[in-house]
Every structure is written in structure tokens, then in C-alpha cells.
């Protein structure tokens, strides 16, 4: 029988030391996860090992979960995943509040820490599958209640199976109704109550379908739903013929037309637009010289913009086909291996497209 050619692929496990930085970081993470103290020498002589007292978190950990200390955060190379967010409600009468939350929301008390002075320093209740912490006011530690503040800036949103039932319960327990249950245009059924201690609770009954952005934006609700994924700087460019420029950006360059707002009396005048680059970033093309816009009162044709794209060649071909004036033909940049080119739009602005993204 002949030998199996695949036998030749056999590979022993050959030890290989990873990058020092990686080895160090992972060790730090390991030691921290274990709550054990590591040694500085990774060669780790046994005698140098010692177990340090773990620094306890300043906030009580959720059962079975471990809060990362700030020091860990700094040393770790990777962002630590957040595993819980717990509202900590300061109230002017914590004992009464615990009763109220039980009656209104069906909260069950896990425990309470009663101080020598009678104040509740910390209490934990569970509402369904979530935890909420409650304490009396401790102004010396910055914990003050809505009554002292004259209001509250945060609201709790409780996702519940029946907004109507919980709303009725809360009112019966002594809450003030701010907004009765209503089917909101974003699809959820919601209601708002103010509890007797000044905290605002939004009751939310999510719709099965979830938010339909398109149909919401099609309606007249006074709000527009926007995605947070666009670039952080918006470039504003003014043109004599803004409509023509928008056509160029969309048809030739490849921008997406998100929003174009013409003037009410003259539709050839563009007062606002949002053209998004599919790979990130937004350009706003508007008509030059709008009376009420000081930043539109400037010369046209003097701007230069650089757009990052993984496919400069594709954009380049479209620009050549459109007969745009070439400022720099496509080629490799001196600072990067990727391709880049520059063209002039019909108004004179220079547009550069390249794969270099600064990294």
C-alpha cells in the first residue's frame, strides 16, 4: 500500500512566542479576570506569585457579574463589553418608594441596607428581569432626589407587555398620569407617569413590526428618523447651479440623494441638501447667495474636497466617461500605496477620491 500523500502535511505543534505587547496585555487581562495578582516577570518563578486583594468595585455588582475597575479599563487593549445598566434612583423617602414600586410595577425587593441614621443607603428591587437600585438622599455624596432638584432630567423606560394595565396600576398606587396610553407613530404603544417621588416612567409596549423608518419619515410627525452611521463632518459647497451639481455628485461621483430642499418659490434654488457618500460622510450642496444664509455668500468654484473610497478606479472611470477636467490622473500617492485622483467639477471645485483613510 502506498503512503498517503497527505501524511506529509503533518505538523507538530511548534511553540511560537507571540508579540510581546500582545502577551503582556493578555496576561494582564487574564490576571484581572481571575482576580489574582500576576507577577511582573512573565517567566514566572513560582515563588514570586502572590495573590493580591482584589479591589472591590464601588458599586454593588449584579449577581454573578463582575464590574471592571477603571484601572483594568485602561490597561486592556480591547473595550470591555458592558453587561448591564442599572438605574439608581434617589428619592426623598426610600422606604415609601419601595412600597410604591412594589404596588405600581410589581417590584420585588432583593435587599435593603439600612444605615445607623435610619436612612436607606442602598436597596435593590427586581422588576421582571431588570434590576433597579433605590436610596434615600445622601447630599454629602451627591445623591439628591427630584424633590430637592425641582425636577428630573432622566426617565425610566419600562418595556411591558401591557401599557394599559401597568398604567392603571401605577395610577391606583398613587402615580400622576402625564400621558395616557397611546399608539405612537413610531409603532410603540406608550404612556408616561410621574411617581410620587418625582421620577418619570415611560411605559412602552413595543410593536411587533418595530420601527418602519420609511413610513415614519413619509408621515408628517415633526421629526425625521436619521441613521447615526454617517461621517462626523459635513462639507457645505455652494453652486450657481446647485441642481446641476447635485446631478453630478449623484450620477457621476456616486453620492446618494438623501434630502434635497428647494426654495418654496423658486424650485431651481436649493436651500438645503444632504448627499451621503455610501462609505461615510455627507456633503450639503446649496445655491450660492441665499439672502438669509451668510455662509452661502461666498465665491463658488474654490473648494477642494477629498472623499475616501475603497474603489477609486470605479469613480475614476465614471468621471472620465463624464468628460470632467482632470486635475491629477489616477495613480499611486506618494504617501500611500492606494490609488487617488482629482477632477474638477463644472464650477471649478476640485474633488479628490482615494483609498487612503489616514491610517
Amino acid at each position: 500500500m502506498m503512503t498517503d500523500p497527505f501524511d506529509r502535511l503533518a505538523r507538530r505543534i511548534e511553540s511560537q512566542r507571540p508579540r510581546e505587547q500582545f502577551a503582556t496585555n493578555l496576561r494582564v487581562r487574564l490576571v484581572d479576570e481571575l482576580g489574582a495578582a500576576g507577577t511582573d516577570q512573565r517567566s514566572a518563578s513560582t515563588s514570586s506569585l502572590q495573590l493580591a486583594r482584589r479591589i472591590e468595585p464601588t458599586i454593588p455588582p449584579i449577581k454573578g457579574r463582575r464590574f471592571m475597575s477603571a484601572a483594568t479599563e485602561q490597561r486592556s487593549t480591547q473595550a470591555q463589553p458592558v453587561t448591564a445598566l442599572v438605574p439608581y434612583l434617589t428619592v426623598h423617602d426610600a422606604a415609601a418608594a419601595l412600597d410604591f414600586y412594589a404596588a405600581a410595577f410589581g417590584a420585588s425587593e432583593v435587599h435593603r441596607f439600612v444605615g445607623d441614621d435610619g436612612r436607606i443607603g442602598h436597596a435593590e428591587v427586581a422588576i421582571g428581569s431588570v434590576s433597579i437600585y433605590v436610596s434615600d438622599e445622601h447630599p454629602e455624596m451627591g445623591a439628591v432626589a427630584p424633590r430637592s432638584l425641582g425636577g428630573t432630567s432622566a426617565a425610566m423606560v419600562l418595556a411591558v407587555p401591557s401599557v394599559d394595565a401597568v398604567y392603571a396600576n401605577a395610577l391606583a398606587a398613587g402615580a400622576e398620569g402625564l400621558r395616557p396610553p397611546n399608539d405612537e407613530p413610531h409603532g410603540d404603544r406608550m404612556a408616561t407617569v410621574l411617581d410620587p417621588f418625582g421620577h418619570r416612567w415611560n411605559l412602552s409596549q413595543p410593536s411587533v413590526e418595530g420601527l418602519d423608518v420609511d413610513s415614519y419619515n413619509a408621515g408628517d410627525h415633526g421629526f425625521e428618523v436619521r441613521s447615526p452611521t454617517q461621517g462626523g463632518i459635513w462639507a457645505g459647497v455652494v453652486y450657481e447651479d446647485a441642481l446641476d451639481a447635485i446631478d453630478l455628485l449623484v450620477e457621476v461621483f456616486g453620492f446618494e440623494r438623501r434630502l434635497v430642499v428647494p426654495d418654496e418659490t423658486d424650485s431651481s434654488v436649493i436651500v438645503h441638501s444632504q448627499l451621503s457618500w455610501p462609505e461615510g460622510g455627507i456633503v450639503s450642496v446649496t445655491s450660492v447667495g441665499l439672502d438669509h444664509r451668510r455662509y452661502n455668500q461666498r465665491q463658488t468654484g474654490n473648494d477642494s474636497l477629498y472623499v475616501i473610497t475603497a474603489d477609486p478606479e470605479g469613480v475614476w472611470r465614471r468621471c472620465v466617461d463624464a468628460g470632467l477636467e482632470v486635475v491629477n490622473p489616477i495613480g499611486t500617492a506618494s504617501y500611500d500605496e492606494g490609488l487617488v485622483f482629482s477632477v474638477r467639477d463644472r464650477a471649478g471645485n476640485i474633488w479628490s477620491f482615494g483609498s487612503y483613510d489616514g491610517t
Partner: protein
Amino acid sequence: MSETPDIAGNRMRGSGPDALVLLYDTALPDVYGYLVSRCGSVSLAEDLTSEVFMAAVAAVQSGRKPAPTVAWLISVARNKLIDHWRHREVEQRRLAVVDGPTLSDDWEVVLDVMRSNEVLAALGAHHRSALTLRYLDGLAVREVADHLGRTVHATEALLVRARHAFRRLYGEDA
């Protein structure tokens, strides 16, 4: 500094937190070496190495017995590697190698290791996993089957298909 009895006991039993740190110090090059030689990417090998040791942390914290060993870590590394290939394949919607004419199992060739690595990397996740475990790692079919969660019979069939896929990609020009 004196040690607490608890630590001394842990060390004697070879389990517990500081035992794992000791294991890390000795086994890191083995785990990383195993992964980097099979996946061919430093950053991927680093990610998977981290996952392996975090799994060890979880095992220690859950009181798993016996305590992790180098062999245990390598076994976890195998599973992480296979999982990675499988997930990546789902993401990339990579097309499986189309079946060609059935090839005889006789293949007289001296495989070039570099070329073989390229071919392995081009195979689908199942074929790559099966061949890596069987031939690079030298596991028995039974062990390969355990890692892949298949029966021995199904694994034998998979290995036949994987060898054929490898052979087609490797090409006759080699």
C-alpha cells in the same frame, strides 16, 4: 511574603487562579504557535489565543475539574479555529467547491507544504477543518468526528470529499 493556606493548596492541586496564570506563562507559545501555524494570520491567531485563555478562565471560575492543561487548551484552540472558519464561511457565503468527476483515492504526489497551505485556505470551512485536524494535527478519525460534532461514518465521508476538493484545487500541474 507568606502565602495563605488556600493558595498553597490550590497550587498543590494545580487548579485555581494562580495555577492558570502559571499555565499561561508556560503554554502561551504552544497555543499561539498552534493557531498561527494553521490560520496564517497574526491578528487572527491573537484573537483566538485570547478566546482560548478566556475560556480557561471561565472553566476555572466554574470550578471545572480537572483543571485546564496544555492539551485542554490546544483542544479548545482547535474548536475556536473550526468555529471561526465556519462563521467566516457563513459571512462570506463562500461557495463550496463544485463536485467534479470522482477521483481515485490513489494519488502519487509529494505535496508541497507552502502550496498546500494556500489550497487549504481556499477550501470551504468543513473541508479545511477536516483536513487540518486529520492531517496537520494528526488526530484519529474518531477525534476529528468529536471536534466536528459528526459521526465517524460521516467524518470518513467528509474526509473523502475534502481530499478530493483539495486535490482538484491543488491541480495536476504541481
